[in-house]
């Protein structure tokens, strides 16, 4: 684990891409194949199953540290991260371990079968022979949610550097439904003729956000415009009469979308389509939240399928007649895609229509109407471009609509984490319902450090009541809250739930009486919900 922990430290200490790739590449050239494979797996979100829940881990860590449970919880609140809290609070290790990453992954996996007492004994064994950083890494592997600050793309680049293989070839080989238990480093990465794997998708091409006016892209007739749909980016693969559905997180999600199952009898062998898994009913898209309700479910009941059906909005054609078409210019790919969708018609397969425009100005008007189409904005794609992999600047741009906003009054504040544990940084906001204030959203970030300190002082001086880390405050401060969407919600008192709420600015110019009302919020729900 020492080498992997050292890698983690190196990655954690820099924000520079070049340095990260450098560190990873030299790590790959040093460790054995099994450790390489597990590192690739972890960096591509293939984690071992979590064998213990947080309550158990917390209790064992507190016990081993000789700290009462409440004090552990208080510390956890300050640190804000369970794996880190445990790493910091445990006593110095009594021995060392020379075992590598794979051993410890095996160790974690071995716990799945164990009873509680055995699990506890194993955790204590691990904690007492790992150093603070090793423990942190181990805890992260154990509890999941491990971010190493390295995208799959950077990892692929580093791997290319250490193996001498082409980056795109590697990106392709890394995709698919493998785990370190079902393959080896040699088979997955080094084998020149990898086993036929029909399910293997192409790497997605991702768009950059357009910061300047679209005029900066040059001649408008070089560009294709379409709506930016608010679903999950996906890839449909038909090979040898089988269907594979991939989501952008590179997960195989075929079983989650029975609506698509008819594609395998409709579309011919060797067809791969890039598009959006979009909740859609009665001729129009549904809010993203509708899709979310079915993502987490193990069993898709009839009721759910009726309430939140999906279609596939096709953007692009990546393979046709079993040949890679990504080198074709977009214009050609789109034309072929349109004719395929038409010829092999299915209720669940629709093309993402082009937005026709004859000037950037005209497109601007269309862009402002995005919400009428239940879309997030406009996508711009260069007509003569090939289909690239990953996020590369230049050919694809997303031009998002301005967020919705509402002016609201702060009524609760909560303490932050870590260095900010003494500062009130997270707030709850309310709008007027007659002379009552109804809370409707939490929001944080978006304020400058100076403003956070100012709000913090206000909170401390104007506390009405305390509930643990939360304080209710005299309603006085007004903030403009920006959000991407609004939906009906039965779980919230206000009856609405916002998508990506954040503080846009502090409205020092507005007295609290002039904040928006629940009626304003509901009218936004009527228009956009």
């Amino acid at each position, binding site marked *: 684990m020492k080498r992997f922990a050292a890698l983690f430290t190196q990655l*954690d*200490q*820099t924000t520079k891409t070049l340095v990260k790739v450098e560190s990873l590449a030299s790590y790959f050239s040093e460790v054995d194949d099994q450790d390489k494979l597990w590192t690739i797996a972890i960096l591509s979100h293939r984690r071992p199953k979590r064998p213990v829940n947080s309550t158990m881990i917390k209790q064992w860590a507190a016990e081993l*540290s000789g*700290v*009462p449970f*409440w*004090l552990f919880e*208080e*510390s956890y609140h*300050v*640190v*804000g*991260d369970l794996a*880190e*809290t445990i790493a*910091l*609070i445990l006593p110095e290790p009594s021995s060392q371990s020379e075992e590598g990453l794979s051993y410890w992954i095996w160790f974690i996996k071995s716990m799945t079968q164990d009873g509680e007492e055995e699990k506890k004994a194993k955790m204590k064994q691990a904690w007492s022979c790992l150093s603070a950083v090793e423990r942190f890494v181990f805890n992260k592997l154990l509890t999941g949610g491990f971010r190493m600050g390295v995208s799959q793309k950077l990892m692929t680049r580093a791997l290319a550097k250490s193996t001498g293989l082409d980056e795109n070839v590697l990106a392709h080989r890394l995709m698919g439904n493998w785990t370190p238990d079902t393959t080896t480093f040699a088979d997955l990465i080094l084998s020149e003729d990898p086993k036929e794997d029909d399910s293997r998708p192409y790497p997605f091409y991702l768009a950059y956000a357009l910061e300047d006016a679209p005029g900066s892209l040059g001649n408008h007739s070089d560009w294709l415009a379409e709506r930016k749909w608010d679903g999950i980016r996906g890839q449909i693969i038909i090979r040898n009469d089988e269907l594979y559905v991939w989501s952008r997180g590179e997960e195989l999600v075929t079983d989650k979308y029975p609506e698509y199952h008819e594609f395998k009898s409709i579309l011919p062998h060797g067809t791969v389509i890039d598009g959006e898994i979009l909740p859609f009913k009665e001729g129009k898209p549904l809010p993203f939240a509708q899709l979310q309700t079915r993502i987490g479910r193990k069993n898709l009941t009839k009721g759910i399928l009726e309430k939140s059906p999906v279609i596939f909005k096709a953007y692009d054609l990546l393979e046709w007649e079993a040949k890679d078409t990504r080198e074709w210019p977009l214009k050609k790919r789109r034309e072929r895609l349109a004719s395929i969708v038409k010829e092999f018609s299915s209720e669940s397969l629709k093309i993402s229509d082009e937005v026709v425009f004859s000037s950037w100005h005209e497109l601007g008007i269309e862009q402002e109407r995005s919400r009428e189409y239940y879309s997030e904005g406009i996508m711009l794609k260069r007509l003569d471009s090939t289909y690239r992999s990953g996020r590369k600047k230049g050919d694809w741009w997303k031009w998002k609509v301005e967020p919705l906003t509402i002016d609201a009054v702060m009524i609760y504040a909560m303490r932050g*984490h*870590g*260095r*900010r544990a*003494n*500062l009130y940084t997270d707030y709850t906001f309310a709008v007027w319902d007659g002379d009552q204030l109804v809370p409707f959203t939490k929001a944080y970030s978006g304020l400058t450090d100076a403003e956070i*300190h100012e709000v*913090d*002082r206000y909170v*401390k*001086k104007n506390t009405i009541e305390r509930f643990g880390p939360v304080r209710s405050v005299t309603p006085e401060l007004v903030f403009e809250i920006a959000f991407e969407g609004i939906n009906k919600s039965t779980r919230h008192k206000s009856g609405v739930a916002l998508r990506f709420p954040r503080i846009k600015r502090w409205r020092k110019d507005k007295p609290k009486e002039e904040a928006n009302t629940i009626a304003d919020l509901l009218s936004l729900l009527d228009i956009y919900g």
Partner: protein
Amino acid sequence: MLLEFTDRGIYCPQAAIFIDPWKPVDKALITHGHADHSRWGHKHYLCTAAAAPVIKYRLGKVNLQTTGFGEIHTINGVKISFHPAGHIVGSAQIRLEYKGEVWVVSGDYKLEEDGLTETFESIKCHTFITESTFGLPIYEWRPQIEVFQEINNWWRQNQALRKTTILTGYALGKAQRIIQNLDDSIGKIYTHGAIENVNEILRQQNILLKDTIRVTAEIPKEEYIGNIVIATPSAVGSSWIKKFSPYSIGSASGWMNLRGARRRRSVDRGFVLSDHADWKGLNTAIDLCEAEQVYVTHGYTSIFSKWLNERGVSAGIVETQFEGELAEIGESTEKEEEV
């Protein structure tokens, strides 16, 4: 009670004297020169001779009397003496004794010897008023020799890459502790003006600091390459540091113990180095002084006092409405510079 907690600070009615008061008073005992302990506007100040020059420099013309460590001053029957707190040069715990009852006010303190500061001395007392800046079990410092090994290695690496090393620490205390423990065989030590001003004061009081060079506009940029610049925390992200490019920047502070804090500081390296006691240090100090009653101030007061009570040490929070609210605000503003 020998000491009371008022809205101006800790007060001894028998001697009519305050300790580190935050509002103007007639007579003030000052533990040390940091801004949250020595404030402007009191009529009379008493502090250690070693702490005085910096306090004079910071506050200008004040009516200040000094004392040696251990010297006893009797005011209306109260015996007052100052004892090393190990926090920064001249910093003191203040002992007050009246009719056999002994109270000690810790001020800020640390137990580890740092090579510069007078070593912390444990004072037996009936009542101990302790700080609790790092009063959580997640704060445990490694011996400074290890931390400085890390710092010196980082400096060497940067030098090999032909970069300037910039390390930040607050100007009074941390900066000098860093300077004193750097391996100056690696290169030259440059200092930010605010730090060099303090260095000059300390040298005048015969403290042997390693050689440092004040950063000035006249020094050609190339001179800094491979050397180290000690700067104040406010330098991070300022235009002042641009001239040292290419550089690697680090921060030395107790808060660097947390990953989130390291990342938010947007420095390349965070070194865990504090002039305050860690969790073990606080607990050791309390055990050693054998106090029957402890009051906790300045930090994680409620958590730390609850912990002490569970351990069988009777503990309370230094609680006035003023302290309760404003100390928290102090935490979020002044601590930035000081810890």
